[in-house]
Every structure is written in C-alpha cells, then in structure tokens.
C-alpha cells in the first residue's frame, strides 16, 4: 500500500501485476488508486511474465512503470528484467520475498539476494537493488527507485519481505522530484522524423561485446556513485553485525539487549544491495575485526561481505531461512553464544 502510494506520488502511471502472496495489498491498492489519477493505468495481467513485458511496453512508450511480486513470481519475470536491462529501459520491480526455493512458503525471508544482486536473469547485467528496513524507507526508496531507474535507464528492484509488506508505521511522504528523462529515449511514433528502434538483439559478437562493455561502464558509474548504507552504534563496537531489511531491524533490537549485558555491538546495514557498499565496509574493517553476517537465508550477502573484507577480518554467519523471523532476544542470545568463545569465532566460514 505504502509502496503503491509512494509510486503514484513519484509519477508512476502504469502498473501491471499478478496475484501472489505476500504482496497482494499492493496490487489491490494500485487497482483502486491508479484509476483515480489522470492517465493512470492498471492491468491485472494473465501472468507474471506478461506483467513485466507490459511494463516494458509502457516504459518504452515513456511513462514510469512498475510491477510487483513475490519470489516465485520474480523468477518468472526475469525474462523481462533481462530484456529491460538489455534495452536500457527504466522500470521499478518490487519483490516481497518469501520462503523458498520452489513454492516455499509465504513467510518473510531473504533468500532472493543472489537473484536480485547478480542480475537474476540471463546475460551480463545488473539491477539496482534497494533494501528498505522501515515503512518510511519503503516510501522513500520507492520514490528513489524511480529516479535511479530513469537516471541510469536500468531496472531498479525494491527488495523487501513479507514483514516489511505487512508492517505499519507512521510515514511521511517526501516530495517527489520532477522527472528528468529525455523524450529521445521514448517510443511514441516517429512523426515526421527518423524512426527509432529499441532492441537488445545484437548479432555480431564484436558489437555485442561493445554493448556489454557499455553496460558494464554504466554499472561501474552506479557502483561508484550510488552505494548507500546505515551505520548504527559503531563507536567502540567490538563486533559489527552486517544485516539488511528485516534482519537489520531485528539486529537493532538485539544490540540494545547486548549492550545491557556488556557486549558492544554495532550494525552495518547496506541500503543498496547492488551496488554493495564495499568501500564503507572495508574501511570499517580497519577499526573492527569481528563481523557477523545475519540473514534470513542460509548465507548469500555473506559472500559480498567476504569479498568486501577480503580476509582482513573475522566473519561469522547467523542464518534463519525458511520464513522464520527470529525475535531480537533470540538473535541476541545467538550473538552472545557465538561471540563468547572467541577462539572458535569465525571458524565456521
């Protein structure tokens, strides 16, 4: 709901979606509210695949377009996400992650990190991935996602989970920036001028190579300019938990309890999962030597943390996959248990 309202305020005028739990509230909200805004279009598509391609069409035609789904549906959408990246078309895709693989369940999980941050579909591409950890951020990042997608002409993903989707908090909508997207990228009929082609098919390998490098250069710019993270309670921390989204919220709750029992724990929360805030995390390793990655998965962001820290610090992992949302108390106990025995700390990975 919140995402829907933020999207409409950001000027999104096209939404196509297919029912899947836990994100139906958003589809329902768009159905009701898209028709209330001028030129707002809502389509309940026949499939996830159709939805993403409708979004592609709408994006090519020049409007801000969005689709949303949950894990299995996002797998189906990869056909279109890869195509959007290839054709350099902006779009916002929301994934309210649930337990997986396969049908999994409908409880909050974080198992789609690899899929989101490594492109997800076939081919050499990346998507911008934003991971909100509060309702306020859900609204803010949705608006930002549209701006980033436009700026880099690339799909942007909001990666949240069922808990983020269901939770309510007081939220203030920020003012949306005016859209900055050239009409020259839009397909609106050639008029009297030259006709345009939007395509991802590049048959000659040398030309395809150039297209790949062009995209890669763009991804490099995004990596250099757009990383975001939150640092929490890092002063004098002896252990830093790296967590995003719901896991980061749980961590914040646990940090307080741990502080009361004399363990100084900080939180490093990536807000952009791709680009991953490598530099900031690496700098942190000059001060802190013990890191604990906490995910509601069996360890995916863990790999990015390892790449960022390059062996300069101890890294341990705590995972709760399958739709289990541990309480801050549970997590605090786990951290204490892991960390108490410093000799074995970090041996697991």
């Amino acid at each position: 709901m919140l995402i829907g309202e933020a999207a409409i305020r950001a000027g999104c005028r096209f939404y196509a979606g297919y029912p899947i739990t836990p994100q139906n509230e958003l589809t329902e909200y768009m159905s009701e509210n898209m028709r209330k805004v001028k030129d707002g279009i809502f389509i309940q598509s026949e499939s996830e695949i159709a939805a993403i391609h409708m979004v592609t069409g709408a994006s090519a035609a020049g409007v801000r377009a969005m689709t949303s789904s949950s894990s299995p549906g996002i797998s189906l959408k990869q056909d279109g996400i890869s195509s959007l990246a290839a054709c350099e078309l902006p779009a916002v895709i929301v994934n309210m992650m649930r337990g997986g693989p396969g049908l999994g369940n409908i409880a909050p999980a974080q198992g789609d990190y690899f899929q989101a941050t490594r492109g997800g579909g076939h081919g050499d591409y990346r998507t911008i991935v934003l991971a909100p950890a509060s309702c306020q951020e859900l609204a803010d990042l949705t608006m930002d996602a549209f701006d980033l997608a436009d700026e880099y002409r690339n799909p942007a993903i909001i990666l949240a989970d069922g808990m983020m989707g269901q939770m309510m908090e007081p939220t203030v909508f920020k003012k949306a920036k005016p859209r900055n997207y050239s009409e020259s990228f839009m397909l609106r009929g050639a008029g009297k001028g030259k006709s345009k082609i939007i395509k991802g098919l590049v048959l000659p390998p040398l030309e395809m190579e150039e297209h790949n490098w062009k995209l890669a250069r763009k991804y490099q710019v995004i990596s250099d300019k757009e990383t975001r993270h939150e640092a929490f309670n890092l002063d004098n921390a002896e252990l830093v938990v790296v967590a995003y989204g719901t896991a980061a919220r749980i961590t914040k709750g646990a940090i307080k309890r741990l502080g009361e029992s004399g363990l100084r724990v900080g939180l490093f929360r990536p807000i952009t999962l791709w680009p991953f805030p490598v530099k900031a995390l690496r700098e942190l390793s000059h001060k802190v030597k013990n890191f604990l990655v906490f995910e509601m998965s069996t360890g995916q962001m863990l790999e990015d943390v390892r790449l960022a820290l390059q062996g300069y610090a101890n890294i341990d992992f705590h995972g709760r996959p399958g739709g289990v949302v541990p309480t801050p108390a549970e997590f605090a106990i786990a951290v204490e248990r892991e960390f108490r025995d410093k000799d074995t700390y970090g041996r697991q990975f």
Partner: protein
Amino acid sequence: MKKVFSRPKSLKENFIYHYCPGCGHSIAHRLVAEVIDELGIRGITIGVPPAGCAVLAYYYIDVDMIEAQHGRGPALATGIKRVLPDRIVFSYQGDGDLAAIGTAESLHAANRGENITVFFINNAVYGMTGGQMAPTTILGQKTTTSAPGRDITLDGYPIKMSEILCLLPGVKYVERCAVNSPANIVKTKKAIKKAFQYQIDGVGFSMIEILSQCPTNWKMSSIDSCKWIDEVMVKEYPLGVLKDVTAPEKKKGK
C-alpha cells in the same frame, strides 16, 4: 514514363532483406509498409517484432519499433497501446512465438480486446532455429524434430489459433490469408489495411494470419513451396474471413 512500381516510403532505404530467397516474410513486410503509407500512419505507428526470423523487421519497416522477447509481443503491445491509445500498435509474430511460447499473451491480449493489430505469420515450422516442428506443423510433415513426420500420438494436432481466438468476444476481426500467389497477396494487403483501419476506428483486437512459405526449412524450391501452401496448408488452414464484427459507426445506428 509513368512510374508504376517503387519502394514504399515506410520501408527503409538501402536495405537488403536478410530473408532466404522465396521467403514470405519480405512480402508481408512490404505489404505492411505499403498499407502504412496508404493510410498515412507512419508517424504514429509503433511495431513490435518477435524473436525469430522477423526480429529484424525493424531494419526494414520504417516506424518506431521495440523487439519482444519470445512470445511476449502482445503484452508489450498492450503496455504501449494503453499508454498511447492514439498510436497504431501492431505485433508481428511467427507461429512458434504466437501459438506456443506466447499462447497466453496472445490469448489474453485478445480476450481483453486490446485495440491492437497482430500479424501472425504461419509457416508451419520454427524458421530461425532451423526448421523444428511448430505447433502449426501439418500432420505428417517432416521437420528436424519430427523426422518421420508429425505424429498425433506424440505431437498432437496442428493448432488453429485463428479459430480459437474467434471464440473470444474481445476479438473483432480475424482473417486468414496467404502470400503465395499474386491474387492471395492482393487479398492479404486488403486484410492488413482493414485491420489497421479497425484499429484507427477503435473497433478492437484484430489478427491477420498469413500462411507464408519457408522454402529453406521445407526443403523445397520457391515455386514448390508456393504450391505446397495451396495443396496442403490451405486444407488444414482454410483461407478467408473467420470473424468480422460490424464497425462501431454502424453499431451506433442500431
């Protein structure tokens, strides 16, 4: 001297068709371009070519174009048309694209009655990938994935998408044509023009199925492949108007 034949303005200059000699695509492309010229809609037309041989249609037909992934043309066209209802939007699809991998998109765009035009090139094989069996392959027809000939027990029956779509109230006009003879080509052009006119008038979804020769994958000469359409394909896929609802201005009079 009177000029009696020239390149349609809506075909790009200085191109060489990459299609095989005798292929029906180039004729269909030219007809689409001629009709776009005649209706004066070049500047407001947006085309969606498919994955397959015809993906390169954007190098020939001189209108704004965006390629679709395998089978997704009608979904893309839906997105474009909903955003730009005053533009003329068409998708151009082959039989594998429209009747196999994109069946859902085709059926549902038709069922929603999207005001778009679909050109359905039926040559009974997958062309670009090298002549595999298509959903429209004729019973007994030999392809690279039905070497002894299409067998009902293994492969089912040739699918008749035009007849299937006619059942949907959202579909306003369906005609099956062919581009294997001058007479059929003239009829095809008329059908294409009517379909575009219907879209301009806001009538709704229309599809023109075009039986098209593929001499390379049929392993025939160009002339034999034109004959094969008359002698074999047409028996499975009879030509003619399959559905044509009255135009809206006539409806208003009732």
